[in-house]
């Protein structure tokens, strides 16, 4: 492998349990987002647009979908002979083998990979944030301030600061303290989970952390405090712009709606900073005579005969005549049959919503599928690969999960299709 000045490591490992059935078969970063994209597209495109060409994707939970989605890296121009995209799952060494523990442990286990690239700097990223950021600029700051580590921060509203990892800083934005979810925040600079480390410094820290008993091997809770204690120079890099963690069903839904409601913020139309994605190879979409489409984002392969309002449709969605879709997010291949009504629904790959089904935030009734742990704000989530029985009723805050045992008469699932993993 050729020497790279900087290597990006994307932490794409988590199961993303808070996304419920959406991550039953695929890792969170591979979940479709914003009509044309997968969540990880934003981070991969940031790397490509920042000129960073050696990218390791650390994944241990259901990496197949990520593996085949990232594939040869071509859509992000990461099909390089020198560098490119590498999927890095845990592996077996002579004698021992471990699954990834914390975020820092995941990097520790891939120390050899980074050493082989022999970089000066390592960029640590999350695979589940929606934002556009030029890491090259952050790196230039990291180099010019001669910092050991630079952490990207976002000014958040003071009232929300206690929900984030907060960095307290002194002069020149030098970090003095990291406080996870402080009750009384001293600063409103929230860590974005974007770190640049000088590799030599991080390498040493990872080894020390690994030897520390009781460490949870996490960047935020362990590595950063340890470096601060050791008197290392940690700087904050202020980012301003759209940034969203899509770790929950409601934040995922919100971020999708932001594409419609705040199109200038994430600005997908910006041709100087394109967000790349793997193309589904479908024809342009078709809007039939009699269809209504308002305030909606849509992409290739869709065929719309019914009514769609304020929704985000991934590729190859079919909305039949008389169906009504509002405030919803439909993933690739969904079919909504005639007369069905969806409101604030997130529907998984290839699922067929039967005729006259009523589902969503304004649908009332009791249901064994109610799951307020996953579904909040009235959102309904429906698993991939299902045929929902005609005329079923799925009220607010339900998650339709084929593995959930429900009485036969309350079962809304007519059929479960073979699930595709990508």
């Amino acid at each position, binding site marked *: 492998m050729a020497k790279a000045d900087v290597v990006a490591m994307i932490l794409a490992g988590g199961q993303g349990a808070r996304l419920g059935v959406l991550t039953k078969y695929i890792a969170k970063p591979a979940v479709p987002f*914003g*009509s*044309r994209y997968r969540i990880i597209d934003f981070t991969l495109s940031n790397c490509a647009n920042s000129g960073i060409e050696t990218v390791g994707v650390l994944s241990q939970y259901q990496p197949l979908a990520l593996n085949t989605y990232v594939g040869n890296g*071509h*859509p992000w121009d990461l099909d390089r002979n020198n560098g490119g995209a590498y999927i890095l799952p845990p592996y077996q060494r002579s004698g021992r083998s471990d699954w990834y523990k914390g975020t820092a442990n995941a990097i520790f286990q891939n120390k050899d990979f980074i050493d082989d690239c022999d970089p000066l700097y390592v960029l640590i990223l999350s695979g589940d944030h929606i934002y556009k950021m030029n890491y090259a600029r952050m790196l230039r700051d990291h180099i010019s301030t001669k910092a050991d580590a630079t952490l990207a921060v976002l000014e958040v509203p003071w009232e929300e600061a206690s929900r984030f990892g907060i960095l307290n800083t002194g002069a020149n934005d030098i970090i003095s303290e990291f406080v996870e979810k402080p009750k009384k925040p001293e600063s409103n600079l929230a860590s974005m989970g974007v770190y640049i480390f000088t590799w030599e410094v991080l390498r040493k820290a990872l080894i020390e952390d690994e030897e520390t008993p009781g460490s949870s091997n996490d960047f935020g809770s362990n590595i950063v405090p340890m470096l601060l204690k050791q008197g290392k120079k940690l700087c904050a890099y202020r980012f301003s712009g759209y940034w969203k963690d899509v770790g929950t069903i409601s934040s995922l839904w919100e971020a999708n709606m932001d*594409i*419609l409601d705040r*199109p200038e913020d994430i600005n*997908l*139309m910006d041709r100087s900073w*394109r*967000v*790349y*994605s793997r*193309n589904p*190879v*479908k*024809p*342009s*979409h*078709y*809007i*039939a*005579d*009699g*269809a*209504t*489409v*308002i*305030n*909606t*984002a*849509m*992409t*290739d392969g869709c065929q719309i005969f019914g009514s769609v309002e304020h929704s*985000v449709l991934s590729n190859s969605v079919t909305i039949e005549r008389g169906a009504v879709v509002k405030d919803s997010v439909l993933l690739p291949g969904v079919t909504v049959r005639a007369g069905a009504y969806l409101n604030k629904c997130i529907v998984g790959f290839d699922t067929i919503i039967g005729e006259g089904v009523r589902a969503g935030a304004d649908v009332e009734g009791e249901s064994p599928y109610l799951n307020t742990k996953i579904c909040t704000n009235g959102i309904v989530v429906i698993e991939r690969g299902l045929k929902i029985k005609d005329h079923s009723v799925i009220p607010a805050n339900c998650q339709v999960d084929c593995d959930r045992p429900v009485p036969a008469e309350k079962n809304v699932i007519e059929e479960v299709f073979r699930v595709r993993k990508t």
Partner: protein
Amino acid sequence: MFIDAMGLILADNKKITLGELSKPRALAAVPFGGRYRIIDYMLSDMVNSGIKSVGILTLNKYKSLMDHLGTGASWDLDRKNFGLHILPPYVNSESMGVDDADEMAGLLDFIRSNRSAYVIIANSNMILNTTFNDFVDKHEQSGADVSVMYNRDGIKYGVPNYIFEIDRKGYVKDMLFNPEKTVSNRCSLGIAVLRRELLIDLIADMIARGERNFGVHVLTKKFDTLHIRAHEYKGLVLRINNVQSYFNASMLLLDSQVRADLFWTGMPIYTKVKDEAPALYLENSSVSNSILSDGCRIMGTVENSMLFRGVTVSRNSKIKNCVIMQDVHISENCELENVILDKNAVIRPGIKLVGHKDYPVVIGKGAIV
């Protein structure tokens, strides 16, 4: 499954012009069907047949074709071995002029450098979704020297067309270009297959004789010395022979059955990936019976139209029966009917353009109206 054939696509055709649309580019590079260029269909047919080596013969104006095809990655033809080759007219070092003999020699070199048993040669004015495996198998079984494809719908789309007359065994016994009296309804699809070794012999012979033209119909004309078998194709074919048929074919795509036959056969039509944003339908959009593509922003009314990638239709504008190519901007309060707008055209506020169904208005590439 494994096809033992290479492909040759003729990107241009001296007999076919699309007026303003083919002025800045080769015929094969004319946009068609929302996300595509004309060549995408034939190229995808070849790739879907398992062909891994395709040569594109260009006449001139190949720059936009080169831009479109790039490394060939979108068709998975960015290969170390074989893959996609553009064979530009060879510019001779001495004269700086184009010397057709050298061009033919370059073609011969390319065909020789391949290893497959068969060569499929295709013009690029036919839009169809098929694979050639069966065509090659039937050719192999027939023992013919060359097989050519035809269908029976051709004449209804008008000129220019080659008509085959065939004998009872299915061999070509005559070929007529735009005959006054129609002797047959077998209309050439401009697609042929033959053994690579035979093609090498034929081209070498043509070079030796000083012939300077090459193409499916140049070969088919040799029906008196070669056994040329005619193979009927029964699927959907859209023929692009002139601006009128181009416009008609575009409008035919609004028919669900035509779209199903062309796009939803399970064999994808590949094209250059553009990484546009999804299409956005905003507050006042009203769209019916239309095809739209990524990157469109719709604030007005669109009816019976085909919009390529990145088209903006502003508030209070009304589009009807139009073909609007990539990155066209339509300002507010416009009214367009039966118009073809080429790439990057800009329609200023309040403009009204109305063509006739049979004589669509064509606005050239980058024009500001």
